[in-house]
């Protein structure tokens, strides 16, 4: 008799799916916005929007914190990471931000009205953001403030047409109907 019990059978595939409003469609490769944005700059810190990758349902980007190479790097304070506030504003006045608020619960609540912002990663070097919803033509504004690091309210604009053009270039990986 073996000392070890027989291995359990592999678990069946999970039915869990991230909701459509919480990430890009998994069956696509996104289109790329060909610019990176400098949103804020002080003598010690800068905040960039980088890696803008666009799907027909919304877009991903990195919220990047940079520290001046000539400045000593402080001990990271986890309480401060979450105080980097980001707001994305559409030309029609709608907006979304990473402020504290109730998150919709997948599969139970109806999808949030776009735009809706989900920051999946948060740390001393910034984070990663998914924005549900595409902007209308016009200026697309990224605004931030970070009181803990003395970054005052700052903003930069992007032509939303670049985002819409990238959305149109997103590619379906398996355009034919799925296997039956």
């Amino acid at each position, binding site marked *: 008799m073996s000392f070890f019990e027989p291995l359990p059978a*592999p678990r*069946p*595939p*999970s039915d*869990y*799916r*991230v909701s459509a409003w*919480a*990430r*890009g469609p*998994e*069956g696509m*490769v*996104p*289109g*790329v*916005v*060909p*610019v*990176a944005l*400098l949103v804020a*700059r002080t*003598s010690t810190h*800068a905040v*960039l929007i*980088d*890696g*803008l*990758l666009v799907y027909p349902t919304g877009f*991903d980007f*990195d919220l990047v914190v*940079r*520290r*001046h*190479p*000539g400045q*000593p*790097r*402080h*001990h990271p304070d986890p309480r401060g990471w979450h105080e980097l506030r980001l707001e994305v504003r559409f030309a029609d006045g709608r907006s979304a931000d990473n402020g504290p608020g109730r998150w919709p619960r997948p599969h139970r609540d109806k999808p949030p009205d776009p735009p809706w912002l989900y920051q*999946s*990663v948060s740390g001393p070097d910034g984070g*990663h953001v998914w924005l549900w919803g595409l902007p209308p033509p016009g200026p697309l504004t990224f605004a931030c403030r970070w009181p803990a690091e003395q970054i005052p309210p700052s903003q930069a604009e992007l032509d939303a047409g670049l985002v819409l053009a*990238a959305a149109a*270039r*997103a*590619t379906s*990986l*398996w355009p034919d109907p*799925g*296997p039956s």
Partner: protein
Amino acid sequence: MSSSEPPELPEEPSEVEYRRPAWVEPPADVVPGIVPVELILARTPQRAIGLTGIRAYPTGFGCTLHLRLREDIPGEQSTFGAFNMFGEGVDPAGEFADWYLRFGVGFADGRKATNLDHKRDLDEIPAPDPPTLWLVRWEGYDRLAWEVNVWVWGLPPPGPLAFVVEWPARGIPESRVEIDAGLVLEAAARAVPIWPDPPGR
């Protein structure tokens, strides 16, 4: 001072000067130039690997890998059995070699960097010769989609720049897509300093 008093403790340093070496991350003081590439490196009826958004700096470039599974496959590992975030835990020459997703970049002069290169210590001296490859961000959503941000230290010479993948256990043979390295070099030249004035002026 009586012997019962505790000795004075050295003050804790309030600041840390340590910075990660240049071969694991982009320079802190530069806004990158972007090459809007949108590539499908490999695609089978069940899996696909895409590469998008080259961010070019004077010292190297970053990009995003998209790992996609069309539908659940029984026994598929939640991480796709692909990269390990820290470059450890998988022996690419061992029993599980075929399960290891290979990814690399190849320069026109024959130099290359892959995720099979030996794991390096951050304090390695002397610094490795470019190109090197480093996984910066690794994020999965469910079993169908993963995103991996990669940093390549070292700019390619003019000529073809190859992105190569192979995933034997997943039915993906060695697959290669090439772009003109001039696109990356031009984007690196468009990178902008964040703080144009040298420190101290």
